[in-house]
């Protein structure tokens, strides 16, 4: 790890219309680090992820990524800088085949790599993704809409990996999934983390996320109410109960 964080979000104030959703939130992710952003529905987690990925512009505050101020950089260019968001609800293109969904994940590399290099890159990463998610390989010609929720989540993660992102952002990756499938998702995330992938995972209230990350922060009504080392948090059942309402139990 180097001293310079991969992502530094400072004093973000964001809103929609007259409603302020984030009220001065700051966040850092170091290289190779996994960070959980936790909080109840309406806390502003997804908005924070949209600001990080460039879909929503902040009213105030800055977003620095990989040593550069990217606050004014739109989402389509931020993807090329190395930020990949797996959106809430997965965002699978149902009119595209599974392989087309995956290949479209590397669109941000077009223009950066020569055609031949892009083709080689796509072949290599596709092999890797298919190796991680064999079900996608078996059904590569199927439409994305034909997959189950869990398989769609695998596809969404695989698609995000196609651009070799420096930072992988997952917004509620287990939302709507059976607990068993949620465990599968975390198994994959654990492997990615072991490979050195920097990532942010957003969860409403999951002990599983806390068990998985290096650091966690908690948002409440648009403000950061807690930020710290995940290991310390895991050890403090009272704190977990107070902030996350988990009572130490597993939450799907």
């Amino acid at each position, binding site marked *: 790890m180097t001293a310079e964080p991969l992502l530094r979000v400072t004093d973000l104030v964001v809103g929609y219309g007259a409603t302020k959703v984030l009220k001065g939130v700051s966040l850092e992710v170091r290289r190779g680090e996994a960070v959980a952003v936790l909080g109840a529905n309406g806390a502003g987690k997804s908005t924070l992820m949209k600001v990080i990925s460039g879909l929503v512009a902040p009213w105030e505050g800055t977003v620095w990524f990989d040593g550069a101020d990217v606050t004014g950089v739109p989402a389509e260019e931020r993807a090329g800088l190395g930020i990949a968001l797996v959106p809430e609800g997965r*965002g699978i293109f149902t009119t595209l085949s599974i392989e087309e969904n995956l290949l479209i994940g590397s*669109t941000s590399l077009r223009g950066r790599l020569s055609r031949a290099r892009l083709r080689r890159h796509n072949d290599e990463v596709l092999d890797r993704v298919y190796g991680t998610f064999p079900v996608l390989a078996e059904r590569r010609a199927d439409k994305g809409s034909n997959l189950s929720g869990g398989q769609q989540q695998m596809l969404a993660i695989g698609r995000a990996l196609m651009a070799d992102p420096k930072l992988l952002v997952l917004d509620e990756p287990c939302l709507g999934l059976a607990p068993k499938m949620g465990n599968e998702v975390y198994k994959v995330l654990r492997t990615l983390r072991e490979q050195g992938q920097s990532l942010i995972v957003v969860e409403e209230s999951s002990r599983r996320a806390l068990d998985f990350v290096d650091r966690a922060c908690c948002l409440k009504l648009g403000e950061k109410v807690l930020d710290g080392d995940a290991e310390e948090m895991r050890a403090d059942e009272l704190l977990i109960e107070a902030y996350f309402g988990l009572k130490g139990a597993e939450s799907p």
Partner: protein
Amino acid sequence: MTAFVQHVLDALSVGSTYALLALGLTLVFSVMNLINFAYGLLLVWGGYGACVLVDAGVPFALVVPLCILFVTVLSMAMGRVAFRPFIGAPPITLLITSFGVLLIVQYIAILVFGEKPRVLDVPGFLTGVVTTGGLRIPVLQLVTIASGALVVAAFYALLNRTAFGAQLRAAAELPQTARLMGIRPDRVLMIAFAVSGAIAGVVGLLWFAKVGAVTPRSDLEPTLKAFIAIVLGGLGRISGAMLGGLALGAIEVAMNIVLPAGAITYAQAIVFAVVITLLVLRPGGLSGARTEAT
């Protein structure tokens, strides 16, 4: 039997023109939710372009690609200047902009060419008739059907066999998620306008070769027919646009056959009544889905 085949060819010819019109209009709608009222004006300018080139003695074999290129560039200019700044704007803003563009482009045509019809002289072979097996088929009708098939095949290849096609489908389905993949909405829009313009160029030539003359207000009928076709087929769906166009052509030809001589004057009104009845029965259009997927 001969009469039936003749009617089918008529329906295919009229329907493929409408299908192409609807295709061009739907393409831009699907990526921007823009109902471009100025679309018919692209045909008109294509028609004028053909008139000017033919009158200047340019061989017709050159007039065709030049006109298609001209309308493609015009469509892209329209998209760049008038619509690209409004990406993500509310539909009502796009609607008003579209009306504004219609008026401006129409009045420029009036200023340049005047209100009088300008005759488009097409080569003699296009006005000929092929007689075979008791059928009398106008050459222009065959050219129209063949062009329709060719454009649709090329369009489908572009949409389903190229990376751009996948990007376009992705951007049409989930525009925000598409941006997360690095797909630039402005680039997708410009290419949609280019393809839509190329289609308008082809249809413009076919339309005015059939009608014989261009006026600055010749846009009304093709625009109206394209709207009916896309609504009939199912708004926003590419396959629906083509189905709607072919269905509209079939309904028009059928009305001309079954209506008694005295009622032919009301054929267009009756066609509208049939279309409205179909939409009452299938509000989502002919292409099937009763609720939109996105």
